[in-house]
């Protein structure tokens, strides 16, 4: 008898799109995070953000119960693929949220296309996922690597009046893309990147690089991911360096800012989010996170939270009926959330959110370091002001995008 009900609901009723009947059957959502290895901190923050969102919806979206299945990819591409298979093939997940790292997302790119599984990325920022190699089943709930740093380049030149800047960045795709985006707008507004230092992701100590920084620059743009920002900034101070530091969003992300000391104060960065954004939606969100986890939300927490909100928004558009994947995908691409921790969010046709970008400055407030918002660039596209066509025709953001002068 129950089997008959399910049969009925999945075939006959689904075709008729009679949503009330579907409420009986939970929607299976696969969530790929990282619980072991070097990326575990980001993974945990993602889990926290996602849980918060799920709790907010009491485990139900558009009248359907959400059955969340979590998998640990260990931050390894090969395992990520297995985990995607586990979620989709064994556990029957209909939508995926995850994974954490860009190389993980790329490792399952083909698999997602083959199985036509809608996937929402809560953190992977690799540009091409929504640019030159857009995957029709993929949307992203965060900015691209360069999305926040186009405005920062302009801000550095126009508002801060910096002329000469040295860039130091993690020597991997994320760092390359951030640096290129920053350099592009900075130089178009009259600035000059005079030096580019690329430190390997696993650099043990930054003394070698800090001491190479050109003493004549106006500021240093430091683009780091993970815990490297902590190391760099404290060393920077200990080497007695005085030049102001501009950071990438992740250099002073809230996830690591809580571990930093005074060395971070004054760092100006850009991001599509700051825990200090002063809107009711964000205040509510931050308060909830602080209550549950006693920490400010950062990149990963808010990314996963928003991925979950995207899911909710799309499910509401299709009234919880996900049986028509194309229709669901269309709804996902059509996500429009006027009020969120990010601010207003909608997606471009590549599945990439158009976001308010804030320029933030690290200050000590209420006894803790915060990314205080000093300027907002509203509704910034991943293509900045260039437009998709022109942008996609220009060279790919890479390590060798444009040499320093």
């Amino acid at each position, binding site marked *: 008898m129950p089997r008959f009900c399910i049969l009925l609901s999945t075939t006959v009723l689904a075709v008729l799109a009679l949503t009330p009947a579907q409420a009986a059957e939970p929607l299976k959502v696969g969530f790929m995070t990282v619980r072991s290895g070097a990326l575990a901190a980001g993974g945990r923050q993602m889990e926290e953000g996602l849980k918060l969102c799920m709790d907010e919806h009491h485990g139900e979206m558009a009248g359907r119960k959400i059955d969340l299945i979590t998998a640990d990819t260990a931050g390894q591409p090969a395992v990520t693929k*297995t985990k995607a298979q586990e979620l989709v093939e064994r556990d029957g997940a209909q939508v995926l949220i995850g994974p954490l790292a860009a190389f993980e997302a790329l490792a399952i790119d083909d698999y997602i296309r083959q199985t036509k599984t809608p996937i929402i990325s809560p953190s992977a920022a690799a540009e091409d996922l929504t640019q030159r190699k857009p995957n029709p089943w993929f949307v992203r709930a965060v900015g691209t690597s360069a999305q926040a740093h186009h405005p920062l380049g302009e801000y550095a030149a126009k508002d801060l009046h910096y002329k000469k800047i040295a860039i130091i960045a993690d020597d991997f795709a994320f760092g390359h893309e951030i640096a290129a985006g920053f350099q592009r707008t900075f130089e178009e507004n009259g600035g000059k990147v005079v030096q580019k230092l690329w430190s390997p992701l696993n650099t043990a100590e930054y003394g070698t690089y800090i001491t190479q920084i050109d003493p004549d620059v106006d500021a240093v743009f430091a683009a780091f991911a993970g815990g490297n920002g902590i190391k760099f900034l404290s060393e920077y101070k200990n080497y007695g360096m005085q030049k102001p530091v501009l950071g990438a969003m992740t250099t002073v992300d809230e996830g690591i800012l809580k571990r930093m000391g005074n060395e971070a104060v004054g760092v100006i960065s850009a991001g599509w989010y700051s825990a200090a954004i002063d809107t009711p939606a964000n205040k509510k969100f931050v308060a909830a996170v602080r209550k549950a986890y006693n920490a400010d939300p950062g990149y990963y927490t808010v990314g996963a939270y928003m991925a979950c909100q995207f899911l909710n928004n799309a499910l509401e558009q299709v009234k919880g009926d996900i049986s028509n994947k194309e229709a669901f995908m269309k709804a996902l691409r059509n996500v429009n959330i006027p009020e969120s921790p990010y601010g207003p969010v909608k997606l471009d046709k590549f599945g990439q959110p158009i976001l308010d970008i804030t320029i933030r400055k690290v200050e000590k407030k209420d006894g803790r370091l915060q990314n205080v918002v000093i300027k907002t660039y509203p509704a910034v596209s991943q293509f900045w002001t260039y437009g998709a066509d022109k942008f996609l025709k220009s060279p790919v953001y890479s390590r060798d995008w444009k040499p320093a002068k």
Partner: protein
Amino acid sequence: MRFSAFNALPRLLVFAALLAMPWLVTSDYYVNIASQIVIAAILALSLNLLIGFGGMISLGHAAYLGVAAYLTIYLTAHAGFGHLTGAVIAIGATTVLAMLFGYLALRASGLGFLMITLALGQILWGVAYRWASLTGGDNGLGGLKRPHPFGLDLNDPIIFYYFVLFFLAIAVWCIARFIQSGLGQSLQGTRDQPRRMRALGYNVWLIQWLSFVFSGFWGAVAGLLYAYYHQFVSPQTLHLTTSAETLLMVIAGGTGTLLGPVVGAALVVILKNVVSAYITRWLILLGVIFVAIVLFMPEGLVPGARRALRALRGSSRTDTVAEASSIAKDGA
């Protein structure tokens, strides 16, 4: 030499289980896990040639897996080569790399050998990471479509499983032959008594080098299948952790045996991919299992299980036991 039923039975059972596997499980997911075990087993078997039979502990075996995988994907998906040509070049070039690496690593022995292999592996990792224009850097290289050899659709998990199982069978066969061959026996002699072997007229270096290259060849085969399976490769494939994992598979399963690396591969792949869904701290469990193996079966799971079985059968069959042990030692 006769093979006693006692000794052949576990192997037959394992082989039967491998053949029947797709019919025993409920989801394609498990078939895919089995394919991964088979690929890891080929890599572990090839490493075991060095460790178990040559006494050379390598911490750089991911090099062959990774380079063959990179070449396969690059050549077929990005440089416009056909699948067959791509596969032949990938395996050929990786084997040539093994020739070079063997030449360098065999300058030293023992810990020095281990460190040179480790360093060479890390250099390749660095190159893969840094030479982004060719390798895609940390974003990796994808886009490979699985081939259709002889009209077989390798996109079907079960067909793919039998495809890799076929290669495992060939690998086991070739390696079993190798172990009993003149070269294989010479290699085992150089492992036990290098100086003596020299005095008997053996060019120890050459024998080790040839075996090193042979091992690299099978590592390359594993890399080819790895590329077909994952259709994606990134620097992590080349990283020290992959080499260490493979080394652990071999040691945990039992060095110098044919079955050991297969069992070790199954252990690690299952813990990492399947058990991790149920036990958050699966890595601790894996570590505990390794420690337990060392405490209770220091020679590895397969020889340890053999010993336990023998003990169960008691002393009434000593003659069979003696024979079994001599076969086991000969490289069963």
